[in-house]
């Protein structure tokens, strides 16, 4: 049964109830399901809606008691200010623009590097036999449970000693080392789900393992590779603690660090701050909504066994 029909069913039953007949057990059940879904959606989306609502209000509309649940009056002022149209808030415009570019470069490059390294490694783990395979595999996956604590200070000192603090390279290398175990886990599980007969046909034709990987496995494994790539990108975009210590100015600071800094200033109006938040969340938000089936696949990789 579909939600539309269910809703219609609820309406009829409610109408009947009002007309004097008591609700049936089925009505209660259906109404319960609809209410549950509404509660889940409210819980999941209300904060996001609230940021949008505030960012589309004027300051006096947002600072009101009681709060307005719709932007009143509806205004594009905060976005005009953030984008630097009209002069006001042009400092914010420069910061947001540049930090978005930094976020895109850092999480994009980390995604490409992570997936490239992980595809070859996961293929070796899934298909080839060699000494120390199990030891290396388990040690790599064990770092999944290693908290950021364990590596934070040494990584900072390594980057400082190499003169890499406040460079894209430091951020990209640290992200990649952090995302590799998860990417390998996702790809390893995906490669294992591909029947071996596919490559065997290629081997009969005289292909080398690398050729089989590039010509047979990679094309078939595209959804798994997409899942690993998307999750690496989202994780990169969301990073805060590592860039907080590894980047020191606008030449490399990602948008998360800038939004936190604007929040800390305590003088930036909430309408503007929520506008910056919406902009910082827009790219991962769109990626999550459009490509969610890959994300679900990556999230559940290997968890059901």
């Amino acid at each position, binding site marked *: 049964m579909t939600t*539309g029909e269910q809703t219609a069913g609820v309406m009829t039953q409610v109408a009947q109830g009002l007309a004097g007949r008591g609700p049936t057990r089925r009505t209660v059940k259906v109404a319960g399901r609809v209410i549950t879904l509404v509660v889940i959606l409210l819980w999941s989306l209300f904060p996001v809606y609230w940021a949008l609502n505030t960012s589309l209000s004027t300051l006096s509309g947002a600072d009101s008691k009681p709060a307005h649940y719709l932007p009143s009056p509806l205004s594009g002022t905060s976005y005009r200010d953030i984008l630097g149209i009209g002069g006001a808030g042009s400092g914010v415009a420069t910061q947001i623009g540049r930090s978005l570019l930094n976020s895109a470069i850092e999480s994009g490059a980390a995604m490409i590097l992570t997936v490239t390294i992980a595809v070859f490694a996961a293929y070796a783990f899934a298909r080839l036999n060699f000494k120390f395979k199990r030891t290396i595999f388990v040690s790599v996956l064990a770092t999944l449970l290693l908290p950021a604590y364990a590596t934070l200070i040494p990584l900072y000192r*390594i980057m400082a000693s190499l003169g890499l603090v406040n460079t894209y390279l430091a951020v990209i290398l640290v992200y990649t080392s952090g995302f*590799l175990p998860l990417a390998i886990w996702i790809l390893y599980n995906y490669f294992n789900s591909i029947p071996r007969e596919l490559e065997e046909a290629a081997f009969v034709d005289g292909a080398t393992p690398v050729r089989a990987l590039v010509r047979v496995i990679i094309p078939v494994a595209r959804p798994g590779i997409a899942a690993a790539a998307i999750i690496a990108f989202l994780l990169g975009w969301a990073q805060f603690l590592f860039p907080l210590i590894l980047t020191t100015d606008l030449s490399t600071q990602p948008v998360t660090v800038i*939004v936190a800094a604007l929040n800390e200033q305590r003088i930036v109006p909430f309408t503007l701050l929520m506008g910056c938040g919406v902009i910082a969340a827009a790219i991962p938000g769109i990626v999550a909504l459009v490509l969610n089936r890959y994300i679900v696949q990556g999230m559940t990789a290997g968890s059901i066994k």
Partner: protein
Amino acid sequence: MSSARRGRLLPYILLSPLVVFIGALSFVPTADTTVEAFFRVMPLNPPTQFTGLGNFRALFANPAITTSWVNTAVYVVVGVVLSVILGTAMALALRQKFRFRGIVLALVILPWALPAVVEAVIWNWIYNPTFGVMNSALHSAHLIGGYHVWLGLDRWLTVVLIEIVQVWQITPLSAVVILAALQSISPDLYEAARVDGAGPVQSFVRISLPLIRPALAVCTVEALVLSLNIFDQVYILNGIAPLGSSVMLQTYVQTFEDLNFGSGYALSLLITLATALLSMAALALFYRRSEATS
């Protein structure tokens, strides 16, 4: 080089970038933390010397640090319990097919995909004492008499409200993992239980629960590691004040604000060990229980 030899070397060639990355940027730093925790390391105030347990003793004498340990314990308990219960509830609600389920699922995942810092900034506005919507909504519903200052006054309220922001972010992960586990259960089992007269509660306890145990273990360990590591939400919603601070926040403060690296290393080592022990304990618990029931 013969092709046989090239074949033998191939796995190591394919793995070498991975081994270099994980070795240099995960294993070496972890080993470094383990060693340096026993040294006095202050970059602006040399020399670096061996102090034995000196860093650890200083940490436990510092009330701000002990506060952060107790807070972190509360973050973990609230985070694990809420995210696993809410995740299970969401998974059960999303398990049956209905029109728009795909869209609902995509929307439910959204909080997981957004940066925690941005989410914390949004919740900070929701919790705002003067114009926050939480005050406004609770006031309109006559649940509170006047507007409250939610954060920074009462310690436990602050910790719970901050953890709710993290739970909001990590619950989708639990929901998706548990949902996948629920969907892999054969409908025949439920049908058989129904024929035997089992109600929905009974079939959940007797069929679903034992079969989703591995998924619950994954969610528990994930929530455990994430809440032990809580930083972004605390940094935004609590600042560096001791009241609601977490161990990760104190590690940051000790190291990068007070520039006492040795102290930061010691804290890192302790929390890393705690994470490893607690995750293994959680996995062992789930594993033993599922052995017992099968």
